[in-house]
């Protein structure tokens, strides 16, 4: 039923003379443009954008949209991404003119409602993290990592000034960590050093000890880790890091497992980021926006980016005068729209509700694990937190069916695929995160499909998917030819 005509590229739908917008007539003086605009800066012609009428644009993008799977239409167990339901109420609220049409430079007096919200959000994130201060500025999880590492660097620079200790040049990350962890370290100017995991999937303490030294600024841990396991050694790790004068960073992408159950600050983390677009249900928008608020211990607070929101009696204000601050990591306040939704989420759930979120996220993951583990190996045990990583390595060896094949075939059954080939420490990894907003019926149907698929002929799976708008694309060709924009046919 898809309309392929409307789904051509907008450039192909263009015809000279069509208009999608009509602007008001000029109601001020009719001076010639040449008078108003210096000739050397004036373009000869407007940019060669396509020309379409509004109905064309609407039909085009409406049809395009139907070529996506999404949380609102499909189960989307994409591990590490926490694709939970995004409540519509939050969208209506975030669109209120009193929240959406605020200019970043309008006067604080005209922003008291919003500043209160942001101030309260800072406090709630402190409480959830068990840490002391928050910056809402970073624009995504990775940006939060980077910001925190910059904060750490500033803290160490500052400390070095008094203690004279040598520069700390290294950031340690486990081999199971998300790619953004070492990348953030590199962008922040650190040497990123990888720490091995044990066969059980935890941080290899021996390797950590070997790599940890007085040049180590930060150890970045993900806990629960990307295997969906809670690393019980975290306290010990924190102690080891702290012994060397380093800081423990927690990648908070997996907070959905431990809300109200355990707090990073309580188990030894000094800094962390949240992914509100995951844990607090910000819509993922086809690849963002996110936000990456960070929480830190009191000692690091002076270094947080500016501004932060402060309360002064009854009044809320932006504090800019923070001499030790690292400065800014992005323009304006931050991804406020995402933060508003996070606030809504937290107020919707309350303390008990947040705990139930994690309980049910973990219950759902374990249930799914229990249903599939006899057929699809789950190398890291038969219990998990909010997600687990299965491996198709055995199936691959036996029948030549890869994690990719299984993933593609799941699409035919109306399920989005899990995250595949991550974390790197598991061969033929399939990382499955159901989230708490899925029903038992959905989990049952997914497990059934997965088990069914494992019995299908290998050719069926190699050729999958069969019922999607396209079959498997040629990725090599894409990378080789690098056609990254449309050009008029010649």
């Amino acid at each position, binding site marked *: 039923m898809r309309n392929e005509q409307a789904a051509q590229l907008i450039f192909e739908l263009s015809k000279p003379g069509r208009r999608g917008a009509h602007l008001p007539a000029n109601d001020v003086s009719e001076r010639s443009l040449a008078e108003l605009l210096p000739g050397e800066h004036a373009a000869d012609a407007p940019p060669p954008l396509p020309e379409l009428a509004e109905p064309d644009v609407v039909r085009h993008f409406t049809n395009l949209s139907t*070529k996506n799977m999404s949380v609102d239409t499909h189960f989307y167990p994409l591990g590490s991404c926490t694709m939970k339901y995004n*409540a519509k109420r939050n969208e209506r*609220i975030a669109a209120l003119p009193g929240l959406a049409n605020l200019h970043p430079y309008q006067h604080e007096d005209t922003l008291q409602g919003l500043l209160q919200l942001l101030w309260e959000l800072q406090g709630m994130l402190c409480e959830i993290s068990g840490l002391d201060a928050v910056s809402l500025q970073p624009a995504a999880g990775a940006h939060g990592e980077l910001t925190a590492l910059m904060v750490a660097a500033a803290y160490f620079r500052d400390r070095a000034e008094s203690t004279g200790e040598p520069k700390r040049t290294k950031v340690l990350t486990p081999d199971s960590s998300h790619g953004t962890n070492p990348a953030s370290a590199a962008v922040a100017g650190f040497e990123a050093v990888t720490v091995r995991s044990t066969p059980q999937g935890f941080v290899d303490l021996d390797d950590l000890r070997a790599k940890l030294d007085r040049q180590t600024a930060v150890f970045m841990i993900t806990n629960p880790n990307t295997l969906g396991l809670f690393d019980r050694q975290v306290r010990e790790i924190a102690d080891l890091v702290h012994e060397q004068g380093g800081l423990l960073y927690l990648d908070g992408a997996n907070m959905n497992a431990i809300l109200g159950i*355990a707090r990073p600050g309580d188990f030894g983390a000094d800094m962390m980021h949240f992914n509100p677009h995951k844990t607090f249900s910000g819509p993922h928008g086809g690849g963002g926006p996110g936000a990456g608020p960070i929480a830190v211990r009191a000692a690091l607070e002076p270094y947080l980016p500016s501004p932060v929101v402060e309360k002064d009696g009854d009044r809320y204000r932006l504090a800019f005068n923070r001499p030790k601050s690292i400065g800014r990591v992005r*323009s*304006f306040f931050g991804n406020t729209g995402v933060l508003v939704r996070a606030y809504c989420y937290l107020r919707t759930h309350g303390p*008990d509700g947040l705990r139930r979120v994690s309980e049910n996220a973990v219950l759902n993951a374990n249930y799914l694990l229990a249903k599939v583990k006899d057929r699809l190996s789950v190398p890291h045990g038969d219990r998990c937190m909010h997600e687990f990583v299965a491996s198709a390595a055995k199936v691959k060896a036996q029948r030549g069916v890869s994690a990719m094949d299984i993933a*593609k075939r799941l699409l035919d059954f109306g399920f989005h695929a899990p995250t595949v080939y991550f974390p790197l420490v598991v061969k033929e990894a399939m990382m499955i995160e159901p989230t708490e907003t899925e029903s038992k019926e959905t989990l049952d149907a997914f497990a059934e499909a997965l088990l069914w698929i494992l019995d299908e002929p290998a050719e069926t799976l190699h050729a999958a998917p069969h019922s999607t708008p396209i079959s498997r694309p040629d990725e090599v060709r894409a990378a080789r030819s690098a056609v990254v924009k449309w050009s008029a046919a010649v």
Partner: protein
Amino acid sequence: MPYTFNTPEDQREMLSAIGVDSIERLFDGVPSEMRLGRPLDLPPAMGELELTDHLSRLAARNSPAGEKVCFLGGGSYDHFVPAAVDHLAGRAEFYTSYTPYQPEVSQGNLQAMFEYQTLITQLTGMDVSNASLYDGGSAVVEAALMAISATGRHGKIVVLGSVHPEYRDILDTYLLPLGVEVVTIDAPQGAADVADVAKAIDDRTACVIVQQPNFFGAYEAVDEIGRAAHGAGALFVVSVDPISLGLLKRPGEYGADIVVAEGQSLGTPMLYGGPYLGIMACRDTFVRRMPGRIAGETVDRQGRRCWVLTLQTREQHIRREKATSNICTNQGLFALRAAIYLSLMGPHGLREVAELCLRKTHYAAERLAAVDGLSLAFDRPTFKEFVVRCEGGNVEAMLAAATDDGFHAGVPLGRWYPQLEDCFLVAVTEKRTRDDIDRLAACLKSQTRTLATAHA
């Protein structure tokens, strides 16, 4: 209240399938001494009605544009957003999907990304565009990092003082700890002196960063500056206002190597500063150095044209500790909004928007300059912003009084430019009417009078 499904009966069944007798047991992996032995200290849960009521009350304590007539700019603008943008970007399949890791069920997002990339190249005159960065400010620093790695010059960059001061802050935050010198060229007359710029560029300089039109709304001598940069082997990075490209020369035409922009103007409300859209486009040569995602064209097994994420070997999840950028989740939704906006506007619509901004800005500048006690800080043509000097006046007091009269009248500049402590920046978009402008002039006139009287 959580939107979870598991009824008590479900939970029992599920626990028994797992083989444990309580949810509590599923958390055995978390040592009890690390557990929070109490409920979180957070306000209690609210249903939708209460939440909506609560947030409506908070929202009512803000004064949005629309309630006040907005003349604020400085990188975020009260442009008109056609309703079709909200409607289409709000389609659940766009809104609640994620990064197109599975291209077979993500062609909607991938094609939209590809269209966005193409539109940005058309808009900027550059060869290639990525699929988005966080915002205009972080895009500038990503461009600098790109230039550093492309030129292999880790020593310094040159940035004009007329580049958005917050963008320059970001440059400092990122680059200073890396030991990169950030040389700022003042623009005391509202735009930089080409000679000053040229002088600052040397063979250690990775790039020169210019904003066009600049933070004060004025034009920089981009041709000459570009030539100067290239002359010294530095890259030429230009930050643009995308709306201005309805009228202004495209940076691809004056030699830019990397173009960045804040994309908020293209169909996104002001949202108190975010989420916005970081635009980045560059010359072909640099495509494999660009941070962020890129959609590329290919064919499926039946030979049908389709799109995938491509050139991923650049990305952090592949390069890990060798990465030069760490961006992962970006601003997909806002790239989509920009694509829809530009499709609706087309060349003529965009030109008209630009022209209205230009005309109204000039009109406003004239009207405000005619108010006793106010003058234009710089004697320069500008695009959609200009700087007003408040002679001997207290800018903060005047703007506060204007707020009471119903205007977000301008952005005070003293916080960034001490020498402009008596100045504020006024922006005029296509949404402002002559009447709005006349009323602003009248309001400021009565303010300058009152303030003058108070001082007298």
